[in-house]
């Protein structure tokens, strides 16, 4: 039941997110390097570093969510989500992780600042 509720909430946010962030600010990858640092508790985007507590983020954009080879920690909610990662979707998730996919295994405080999220996304885009 929670899965269903989570997915529904995700869909709403996805649509809302795409609309609201049509004018996403331009990100600065160097600022994004620092914004991303707390994420290194669990994630590394560098090719070859592999999975840690969270999956590798190398080439995340354009990948189907929940499909990183060798990562066993995905929630059912994310594995079943069926979406492909875009900057817009990551922006929506980072803005309010508890609402985007409430049952995700990623327990994270969120990044309320839009510019900071854009910087982080620009940083990750370097690892495609």
């Amino acid at each position, binding site marked *: 039941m929670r899965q269903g509720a989570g997915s529904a909430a995700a869909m709403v946010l996805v649509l809302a997110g795409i609309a609201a962030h049509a004018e996403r600010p331009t990100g600065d990858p160097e600022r994004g390097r620092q914004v991303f640092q*707390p994420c290194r508790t669990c994630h590394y985007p560098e090719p070859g570093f592999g999975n840690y507590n969270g999956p590798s983020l190398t080439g995340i954009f354009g990948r189907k969510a929940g499909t990183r080879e060798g990562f066993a920690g995905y929630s059912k909610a994310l594995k079943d989500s069926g979406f492909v990662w875009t900057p817009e979707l990551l922006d929506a998730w980072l803005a309010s992780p508890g609402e985007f996919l409430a049952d995700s295994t990623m327990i994270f405080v969120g990044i309320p600042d839009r510019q900071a999220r854009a910087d982080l996304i620009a940083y990750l885009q370097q690892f495609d």
Partner: protein
Amino acid sequence: MKQTRRGFLTGAGLAAAGVTALRSTPTAALDRRDVPGWDDEADVVVVGSGAGGISAAIEARRATADVQVLELFHIPGGSSSLSGGVCYMGGGTPLQKALGFEDTPEDMYRYLIEAGGPYAPADKIRLYCEESLGHYDWLVGNGVEYARVYSDEKELAHHAASLYHSGSERNYPYRDRVRPAPRGHVPPATNMMGGQRLMASLLASAERLGIPVRTRVACERLVTESDGTIAGVAVRENGVRRHVRARRGVVLAAGGFIHNPEMLKRHAPELYPCSGHWGRAGDLGMGIRMGMGVGANVLRMHHGFAVLPLYPPENVLKGVAVNRLGQRCIAEDAYYGAIGHEFLYNQGGRGWLIVDASCDYPGPDARVVMAALAGDITALGRALGFAPGALEATIDYYNAHAREGRDPLLGKSAAFLAPLERPPFKAYDLGVEKAFYSVHTFGGLETTLAGEVVNVWGDTIPGLYAAGRTSAGIPAAPYHASGLSIGDSTFFGRRAGAVAAARKA
């Protein structure tokens, strides 16, 4: 009604009027007479399901108490489950012995006191060292697995290893004062996932004991009897306020406050600007605020784990780290928590790592950015804005001794001593704005050796206990060995749970 103003201000009614401004303040207790009725009860209620909370719950249950663990998120484990999972233990553990290392509780104590500095809590450290062997047995008895593999690396990069020198034991001046021993014990794991393994074992042990871990429960306020005894916890579950009675005691083990910016700015401003606020999302200071709300004393609130991980690769430690005067201030091969502490707390959050072509990072590195590049040291010093001649003096002095394999100024180990003389020379910015500092908080509620929370008048608060980073435990700044935080959480968590279970209701 008692304490009307405080009670009103922190009550639910204020939600719209400035909750942000109050996130750093104590959370006032709820008077027992204002509790409409208990929705649930247990002998011991544990707030938080990280290493401290689960260790407390296990020991309370073994002492035959009826225990309930309340967890804010839908997955138990807390920040401990994202940590390296290292436990600092010694005195001759079976693993140390099996791998051929000699150690005594006295050596372990002397290292922790010598390296710990003036804030190191000697009484807690004494007990922790004396009972370290028993603690090892306890962890193993709860399913925590260690492999008979030692790693000689400074950082936990060896996936199969379970024992390593996790602090500054082999560094000057400690190596000359206390016989070094490897005391970092960690379940073998790939990519720093020892914490996940540690918590999986402890949570499985708690489950075998039949301890319920209730998830998605936000603990908000303590409930007190008219005499100040802790009676229970006011929680929010699915948006609904509920009241959980604790017949014998409440153990606050809700983590530190690295993810509470207001609290951080107020209590630990050095940690606030650091890029890597480290810990799971529950490190919001709730346990500390709830304790403060019943008059608990807090200690070492500005202290923190401040890691500036220059290594791996260890080769870069042949470089020279300088402060804003262009002078060295700490041996570059020190434990990375000591390096981070030095630059963050003692050098105003500014510094540079100077390398030559022989000890540079192999490629761009997310931890540091280059601040200057030059063909000689004079030009590099000029680019960094040092006083004329300052950096040259530092490097000339360093090189002259490094050629002889010595570092008379700071005692860097011979393995990392080589003159910097192969251009190009580079300076990496170690400033807090540019470098990667992973940080979390050490400050928290004052507790006794039994885990009882102490109030501002020095008395214990009946029925209130704390563990892990909600308490002010063994980890104090400067942090000088990995595994002291998890070690403290599990060790004193156990004591808090056992003592809470034994309290006469």
